């Protein structure tokens, strides 16, 4: 299990272009093999927002801890950090030979476009799961709309884009709202 987690996060690290959020789609894909549900993925994303530090490290630690315990968390964190530790010395050594030119930027631009599609896809699947109670698009006949969740999703997107309120406050406020909804 620990070796498997190490290899999976090594793969995520080496294919993870474009930062923490771009990596999340890869992390969801790989962690679902360990049994991660959409709800647990959503909770991870919320914890990423509350807990300080780099999103990719937070996520690797969470997945490791959830599906393999203490050592798996450590191993996942180390594995996802490996690419940085390898590429930085290599670049510094061979800087002159590496073309940081037009062509590299072109390729990167394609990878980032793919990442954008992947994040939207994960977000879409998450909304499907949370707002419509469907685990994948093929089960759409069984959907049952969760109006509270859909309402919160729309409201938070609006508030976040319009007023740039701190994510921690939004998470705490929505938690409070969830509690109130239950009590009423």
């Amino acid at each position, binding site marked *: 299990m620990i070796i498997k987690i190490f290899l999976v996060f090594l793969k995520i690290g080496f294919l993870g272009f474009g930062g923490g*959020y771009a990596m999340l789609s890869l992390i969801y894909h790989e962690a679902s093999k360990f049994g991660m549900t959409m709800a647990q993925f*959503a909770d991870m994303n919320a914890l990423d927002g509350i807990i300080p*530090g780099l999103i990719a490290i937070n996520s690797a630690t969470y997945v490791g801890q959830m599906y393999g315990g203490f050592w798996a968390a450590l191993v996942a964190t180390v594995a996802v950090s490996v690419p940085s530790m390898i590429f930085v010395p290599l670049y510094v050594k061979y800087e002159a030979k590496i073309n940081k030119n037009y062509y590299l930027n072109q390729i990167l631009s394609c990878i980032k476009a793919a990442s954008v599609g992947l994040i939207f896809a994960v977000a879409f699947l998450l909304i499907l799961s949370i707002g419509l109670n469907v685990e*994948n698009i093929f089960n759409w006949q069984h959907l049952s709309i969760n109006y509270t969740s859909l309402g919160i*999703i729309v409201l938070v997107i609006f508030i976040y884009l319009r007023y740039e309120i701190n994510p921690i406050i939004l998470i705490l406020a929505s938690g409070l709202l969830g509690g109130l909804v239950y009590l009423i």
Partner: protein
Amino acid sequence: MNKNMTLFKVYLLAGTFTFSGGMAMLPVIERELCDKLNLITKKDLYEYTTLSQTFPGVIALTNACFVGKKVNGTVGMIAAGLGAVLPAYILMSIATVLYQLVPQDGIILSILGAIRATSAAFLITAAYSIARYNLNNVVNIGIALVCFILTIFNLVSAPMLIVLAIVFGIILTYGRQVKK
């Protein structure tokens, strides 16, 4: 004070007091390493920040490694990298253990449900803000759309799509080069 210790402490501090992602660390790093300690110039710091984004892996960690390497070689790189990673690792370990202890029923499930909805909203806004800067031509919009559709219908895996995007990017740039 020893340079390695300084790097470790500055990145530990920056990692502990910044939320939602690595870019938020930069102002702290700039203030401590550039303004107060003069260990690195602002020009270098921002050049590394741009450069880090072209490498696979954790961007803020790559940036920390570049700065550490520049200031004090390989040992400096490890010191800065360790400082950048440790807060996220330790705090998230504790948070996950606590999270596993929480029973998921009754009022707690209701609270979590609302938080999960907020979490979905954050993912949409993150995707939107990355899209705004990257989907600036027809080819990129096409790639994003194809990846989106293939993923929601579960036809091609996410890692495979990244590899295919790399291959497509190489073919595309090679094609354009030949045309010239």
